[in-house]
């Protein structure tokens, strides 16, 4: 019975997925031409961008980069024709109600937030002169060092201006992270001063490796093209607890951790059996000797 139900669920899922692919996403006629109450201006587009990065980017990816998640159907890029063919009203309706893997956002975002998002998407419409033009990332260079005793990371950032002169990078956020097995863990952000330097005191409770060593990674935001700096590991963290994977009292174990009683039982049983076998073999030798007499 459960097996049949499972099959049914799978069948329904497959069918609905096919429908999502094959059918167009229809928007009721009265919703199609609703006008956007918020004005299409730079401020509102920026607000939209902020919301987009927070709520939408994880699936739809960066605008123009076509790096959305590989879902079925794939979440379209903001600049794509599928997205831009929608009217304002259709965009608003679709993000509000959701469909298939696209969540419904009317319970998550306020109405005005959703209209800001519409403004942001509209910014990439090929028929409209964009208000928000993102500057290409600036080439910058970053140096950093760490003082193991005070746990302070000192950062210095600069860039080359158009004349080719070196300039300090001021008032720029620098990300301080800690290297982990599957990526960098952000621990804080710090703004550079007018000399292009900044310092950040790492919290005490950063967990390091078995001996407390931590690798700090310093990087600039997306607006800059700069190599992230991975500092030499410093002993500034709490030593990582390495749980004893093989608990005491567990019977299965490596030879180093084998319970004594088990080793003795094994050796005792096998040894006892082979000693007895040896005894029998000695008896056979005795028979042979008796024959020789």
């Amino acid at each position, binding site marked *: 019975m459960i097996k049949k139900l499972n099959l049914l669920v799978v069948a329904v899922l497959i069918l609905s997925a096919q429908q999502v692919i094959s059918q167009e996403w229809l928007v009721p006629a009265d919703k199609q031409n609703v006008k956007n109450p918020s004005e299409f201006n730079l401020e509102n587009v920026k607000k939209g961008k902020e919301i987009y990065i927070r709520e939408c980017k994880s699936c739809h990816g960066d605008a123009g980069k076509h790096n959305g998640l590989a879902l079925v159907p794939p979440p379209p890029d903001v600049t794509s024709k599928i997205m831009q063919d929608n009217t304002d009203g259709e965009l608003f309706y679709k993000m509000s109600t959701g469909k298939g893997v696209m969540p419904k956002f009317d319970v998550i975002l306020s109405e005005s937030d959703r209209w800001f998002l519409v403004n942001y998407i509209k910014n990439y419409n090929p028929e409209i002169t964009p208000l928000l033009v993102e500057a290409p990332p600036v080439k910058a260079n970053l140096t950093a060092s760490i003082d193991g005793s005070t746990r302070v990371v000192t950062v210095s950032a600069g860039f080359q201006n158009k004349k080719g002169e070196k300039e300090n990078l001021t008032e720029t956020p620098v990300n301080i992270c800690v290297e982990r097995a599957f990526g960098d863990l952000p621990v804080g952000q710090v703004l550079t001063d007018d000399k292009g330097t900044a310092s950040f005191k790492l919290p005490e409770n950063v967990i390091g490796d078995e001996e407390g060593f931590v690798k700090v990674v310093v990087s600039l935001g997306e607006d800059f093209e700069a190599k992230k700096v991975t500092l030499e590991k410093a002993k500034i963290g709490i030593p990582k607890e390495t749980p004893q994977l093989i608990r005491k009292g567990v019977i299965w174990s490596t030879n180093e951790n084998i*319970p004594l009683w088990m080793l003795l039982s094994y050796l005792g049983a096998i040894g006892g059996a082979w000693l007895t*076998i040896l005894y029998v073999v000695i*008896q056979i030798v005795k*028979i042979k000797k008796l024959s020789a007499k």
Partner: protein
Amino acid sequence: MNKIESPEESRKLLDKIVFDLTRSIVKKDELTRFWFFILIMFIGVGLWGWGIQIKNGLGVTGMRDYVSWGMYIANFVFFVAVSLVGFLISSTLHLLNVSWSKPISRVAEQVAIAAVALAGIIIVNDMGRPDRLLNVFIHGRFASPILWDVSVVMTYLTISVLLFYLPLIPDLAILRNRMGDELPKWKMKMYSILSLGWKGDAKQYKIIYHAMRVLMILIIPVGLSIHTVTSWLFAATLRAGWDSTIMGPYFVAGAFVAGVAAVVILMYAYRLRYGLKDYFEDIHFSQMGKLLVFVGLLYLYFNVNEFLVPGYKMRAAEGVHLLNIFTGSYAAMFWSVQILGLILPIILLLFKFFRKPLSVTLISIVVLIGAWFKRFIIVIPTLEHPFLPVQNVPADFHHYAPTSIEIMITLFSFMAALLIITILAKLFPVITIWEYAEEKGIDKKYFSEQPKKS
């Protein structure tokens, strides 16, 4: 036991017994050659298949990531099971002074030696890198049931060989004394060496009895452990279908069923082939039939526990596994094994009518085939349900089917076991002559006599 007083009568009877029981050694005809030819052909083909497997790796088998223990391991469990009969018949029944089982002891030991030797070889067949076999001993983990199993299989093989050899010593002396021209010289020389110059005085007999008794007692714990440890290979995991506390006795009971069936078949073959109607008598088959009923009921009892109790609860993973066995893709195999291979034989053998030699043998053949498929059901279906859901699994991971190479190698194991049994039967009498003669009332002093050449 009636003592025969007259020396003439004793000598006459002894001559007849020796003549009858050495027929298997002396007999040499086309059929024997044909039988050897068949066995060696199959063994050759199996070894060729094994060569392919070593060259190309275990990928030539049907085993994949999910089912990593396939027909080889099922076959291994079957052979270990069959070997356990040596301990049941030649030790337990002997120590209990069950007299009818005495002529069967050597047959049981032959089965035990062949089966346990092949069990070890099958494990090597199952290895992807048999050249690393020694690592099991060099780097073995004392807490691993696999190491225990290896140790106990080797111990059992040694004890079985000794238990085969010890009661053979006086027989070898009889052969050495009485046989001559009818046997090739190397055979006579072998008897002479292996009989250790046996004289047959009271001291020597005392040692033989004593050593046999020690071995018979030793083989009980070792025999029990060999199959219990084999069951722990499964029961020590958390997999549905294997995670069971009664796996040990369940395996041991099942082993008795398979072993008794194998001995019955072999007894019938000897009776027919070597004209031993007066030695493997109807009563032996009848008693073995009764023994099969007894161990069958024992096994049935464990089966009820093994399947009814988890089936009553149907816990998540266990339920999926059990449904697959009861009503799923293994249902046909499972129910035919349980009904044809266990329940029906028990019922039929309750009737005297079915406890005649031929019918007991036919029933035993069905039981033995059932026992083999039962091991298949114990090993494979459990593995077809992986613990962790994995995406994009190739289709051939889901269902296991043995490839022709695996079947070739499995057939090899059967033929090699039969070859060992045949060679043992061709070299040594299939019934212990001196024990049998003594049972018939012939005094020991006649055994060492040289017969008068007529």
